[in-house]
């Protein structure tokens, strides 16, 4: 299995990219003390050259945010939350839809058709809208009444559950396809129990497919994260900072900041600057794009057959000439 995977350059490249990002992110938070942001840049004489946010330059490869923090480092720090959360959500989706798919597989066909008809609803509106309508009350609209754990866990649950119907049906279809094969019938005749048939005969066919769907789901979840970020939803927890107090009434003007530098949160937080400081939104979106590209690379590599084949050396048939004469034959009685 490992050897086969190693022969696929796309899989290696994609996995390496994500692994490096995750490791770098963890190491960065563990080892490096974040530098104090400078709101102003000085030249050699101590004169102010620029005010934050700084555009992309040598010291700030992806520019800086409104406080003068290096965006590159912010993204690196947020990577573990974004990718980690998307892996957790995708894993949750897979486990739930596997259970759902197996249950559907055991259920009669008429009931399955009924559920498939209901699940067809998801084909007429983007998942982002459904997710938003369910998440927004907790995170934004009625945000005063829900506790912080609820605000983090509930969106994750919604993100998991929203695609379970469609995925379960997919798993059930795959199970059905495998169950139609002849060797399953033979196994049944030989007296294999339900569980044994599943474990020994169906799982080997299902597992590679589930792996591919899992990785695809990680990409899907990342896309939904990015979309939700654009819809101003913070997934990784919201940190409400007081910007200023009204002198007459004492009312506070507050703004939401992402607690964790999580990428979708960065999009949400900086979308207001899209026209004036485009790099502030382009940086997290590009981070999303690259990660999704890496994931799709892995999926593509896994789906296609082995791309790297050792070329067989063409051995020329030796030109040997034979001469056949009367002594080559011997007579037998």
């Amino acid at each position: 299995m490992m050897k086969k995977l190693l022969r696929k350059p796309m899989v290696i490249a994609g996995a390496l990219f994500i692994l490096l990002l995750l490791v770098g992110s963890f190491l960065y938070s563990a080892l490096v003390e974040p530098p104090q942001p400078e709101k102003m840049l000085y030249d050699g004489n101590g004169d102010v050259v620029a005010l934050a946010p700084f555009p992309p330059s040598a010291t700030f490869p992806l520019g800086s945010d409104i406080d003068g923090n290096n965006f590159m480092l912010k993204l690196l720090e947020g990577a573990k939350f974004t990718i980690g959360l998307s892996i957790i959500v995708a894993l949750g989706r897979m486990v739930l839809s596997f259970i759902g798919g197996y249950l559907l597989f055991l259920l009669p066909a008429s009931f399955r058709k009924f559920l498939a008809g209901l699940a067809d609803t998801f084909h007429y509106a983007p998942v982002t809208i459904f997710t938003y309508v369910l998440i927004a009350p907790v995170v934004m609209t009625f945000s005063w009444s829900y506790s912080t754990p609820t605000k983090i866990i509930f969106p994750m649950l919604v993100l998991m559950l929203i695609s379970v119907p469609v995925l379960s049906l997919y798993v059930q279809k795959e199970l059905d396809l495998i169950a139609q094969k002849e060797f399953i019938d033979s196994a049944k005749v030989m007296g294999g129990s339900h569980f044994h048939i599943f474990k020994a005969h169906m799982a080997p066919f299902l597992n590679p497919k589930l792996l591919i769907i899992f990785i695809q789901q990680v990409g899907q979840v990342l896309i939904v994260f990015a979309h939700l970020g654009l819809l101003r939803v913070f997934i990784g927890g919201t940190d409400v900072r007081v910007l200023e107090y009204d002198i007459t009434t004492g009312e506070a003007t507050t703004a939401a900041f992402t607690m964790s530098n999580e990428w979708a949160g960065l999009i949400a937080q900086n979308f207001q600057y899209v026209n004036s400081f485009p790099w502030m939104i382009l940086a997290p979106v590009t981070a999303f794009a690259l990660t999704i590209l890496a994931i799709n690379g892995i999926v593509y590599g896994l789906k296609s057959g082995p791309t790297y084949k050792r070329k067989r050396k063409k051995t020329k048939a030796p030109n040997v000439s034979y001469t056949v004469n009367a002594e080559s034959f011997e007579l037998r009685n």
Partner: protein
Amino acid sequence: MARSFFTKTALQFLLTSIGIFLIGSLPYLLFNMKSQLEVLKMIERNELNNTLFLSDNIVTNVDAYFANIIDTIGIIFSGNATQYYASGGQWPLFPKFWEAYIQSMQYLVVSLFVALVFAILLTILTMLLPSNKRGIPKAFLFIMESLPDIFIILITQIAIIWIYKKTEILLFNITSGFGEQAILLPVLVLSLLPALYIYKYLLLSFEDEEKLLYVELARGKGLNRSRILLIHIFRNSIFTLFNHFKGIFLFALANLLMLEVIFDISGFMTFIFEHGVLNNEIVTMGLFMIFLPSFLFFTIMQWLLNKSFNVMGDS
């Protein structure tokens, strides 16, 4: 045969409609919507300044859920001019919602059409290449379709601003202002990604068809390449394309939402996004407004295709 198609379609229609109602009212199942809305109204009327003492949990209000489903059904079937709640007041839903709908659907339909034309042209051009030289367009396709939609939409927008700054030529209106609508650019951007998907599926199906025996026979008979492509292979891949078209449509809808947010178009999707949370009947209505015409379209197309391909009966 035709009857079984009809009953199947009717059943499907019924089930999906039930599904829409079930999903549209879901917030009422999970949240105490009525009390929450009361609080929100009090805050917006400045009757309530401090909300620290309020707390609530995720609940399962089965009664409120079904009551709300019945309410929503009532609202939709009575056809009364409904109102929606936003920023402290009740506003009439129509014709605002309707105008937004018409505008967004224009974008959607036009760009899907543009996407289709572009994709077919691209596929045919690619197929005219010898099979060992199709790698480059395929690699390009892979990279483009792997990028998330918001990345591509943002990049196009920023690129156009950049061109404007450098050359003072505004290629397109970037955002919709007062009275004037940005039309060309949204349509082009919206058609970009669906075009890529259609191109991908068409190319796959063309390449599958190319290996079949009838193509070999046609070649053996001496028909030229473009004729085989345009007439024979194309005709047979329409069916595959149609099967994928539902997915592409959904994908275009997701793009539409992002496009409206980024380009600041106050269209149908942003309307649902802005007001759907407080007025869940807008979500249900919006879903129906997408579902009804597209379901009609898909059903008619399916029926026509079935008729012309003679595949009625099985399944």
